[in-house]
């Protein structure tokens, strides 16, 4: 793992990262998820699948101005890590820790918390 990577505490930190460091970041996120969830349990498979997607979304768009809705929101662990909650990811699904889904009360970057699937397209209607 690349230990020279700076700590990512916000989407701004992510945007400041040189493009050549992004693959190392993806690797670090995966390693963190695999290690952390081995202790806490959680939705590992879905989140390992969306590492690059979530990085790309936060590189290009600006939450909370731009709204990300995850259907379903158990795919939001990487999003949580990139939006100021990396240091709390070990508390995921633990009492008083991070919720396993997106949660409006948890971060301004979580604009919608959907735990049941298939609600996304219905929510995104706005001119």
């Amino acid at each position, binding site marked *: 793992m690349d230990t020279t990577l700076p700590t990512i505490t916000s989407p701004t930190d992510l945007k400041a990262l040189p493009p050549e460091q992004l693959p190392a970041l993806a690797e670090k996120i995966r390693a963190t998820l695999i290690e952390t*969830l081995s202790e806490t349990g959680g939705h590992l*498979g*879905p989140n390992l699948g969306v590492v690059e997607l979530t990085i790309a*979304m936060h590189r290009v768009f600006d939450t909370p101005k731009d709204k990300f809705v995850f259907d379903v929101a*158990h795919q939001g662990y990487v999003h949580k890590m990139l939006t100021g909650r990396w240091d709390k990811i070990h508390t995921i699904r633990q*009492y008083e820790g991070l919720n396993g889904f997106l949660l409006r009360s948890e971060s301004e970057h979580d604009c919608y918390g959907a735990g049941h*699937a298939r609600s996304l*397209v219905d929510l*995104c209607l706005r*001119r």
Partner: protein
Amino acid sequence: MFEALNNIAAHTKRLITVLNDNEWSIDKNVGAIAKYFNSIATHPGYANLHEKASKFVEFMLGDGARKLAERVENSAKGLLLPQSEGPHNRSTLFEEFGIRYYGPIDGHDLPLLIQTFEFLKTQNEPVILHILTEKGRGYKPALEDPSKFHGLGKYNIETGETQATDKPTYSQVFARTVTDFAKEDKKIVAITAAMPGGTGLMCFKKEIPERYFDVGIAEEHAALFACGLAVQGLRPFLTIYSTFMQRAIDMIIHDMAIQHLPVRLCMDRGGLSGDDGPTHHGLFDIAYLRGIPGLVHMQPKDEDEFVDMLWTMANYEKGPIAIRYPRGNGPGVTPKAQPRLLEIGKGELISDGTDVALIGLGDMFTTAQAAKKLLEAKGLSVALINPRWIKPLDATLIEDIAKKVKVVCTLEDHILMNGFGCGVIEHLSTAGITTPVVRVGWPDAFVEHGTPAILRQKHGLTAEATVEKVLAQLAI
């Protein structure tokens, strides 16, 4: 879903929908839509580009034409939408709704994703980007068993092994039992909404595939489908978590109950879900079902009674009949060899008493047992009841015991508001019995996530908290 797509095309501008196509939702995706995406993803003809796609290429060309051309050539998946052609109109479902479709692209190719989003950001219309990803990417055990690694507890990093439990879960008991029943009774069918793993129904699928139906994440449809099968004289076991059954409430009232269709509603995770939190707690099913005329609802105190209840459901033909059972293990009572039919609406008086009557529903029965011991240690005479039936209540049993004791106490793994205890209060009030009723259950609030032990402690669903409530009432 289609109504929403239709509405989006008509009323929405800047919306990028990413279709994360990993071939899985929780278990393997099923049905025509899954096949349809597969046909797009594997289609070789990416030569003809629609007008918008041409603009996309122009945009990308500005940023390293050679690199892009290589990527297009090298990628077996291709970059852009295949044009409609031949008898199979491939112009995609989404375009039919007026939503521009891009893809499929490799969802693990970061530079490509970033470039694509930069382009899509400039589009002033709803678009959909179809990406192909691997569930469990970068971790061998998760790639080898995507269903297991969708969501799980602790595991060994090296091997991916999870801790084996010594007792079977309620889900396992359910699936084994219904599969065995179905082998003897050809009318039994099992329905799941994309949860063959979670509900345990994988074994039904393997052993009796012709009577197993996974309809995808579409609970409303699952409920209507079950109604249709019941009309045909089949015996559907509609297996949906309590929290997801909420979606099917109209079908349960309008289609099942009004027409007295014998659909078996099997609600796994009935009770606190725990670490998934408020979106997944199954704490509302009594509230949303108990007002439906004629609907039978029950909860077993242990695995043996669970099997008796399932047998009773299999043989019940008068209308919809529901059961709730908790996540995880029960107390570990091995079911007897032959299940027996239970009399509907007949509870079980475990022990008689004159001071306090504890009525412990389902998984709260063990809590009631523990509270009984604590109260007896204080010199009180305590009756213990296993109610079995949420609806219809065992009126005679509850009236008789309420007349004998000074306090009735109900315990349920459900919200107090409109829960089992409310049914008891309503009944006693109507019968003119004034014995006070204290209730143990979840508060009128969305309960947070955490382990059941921590949350039960916090919200007073323990034997100790029960004793406190009872003693406080006795002191009045």
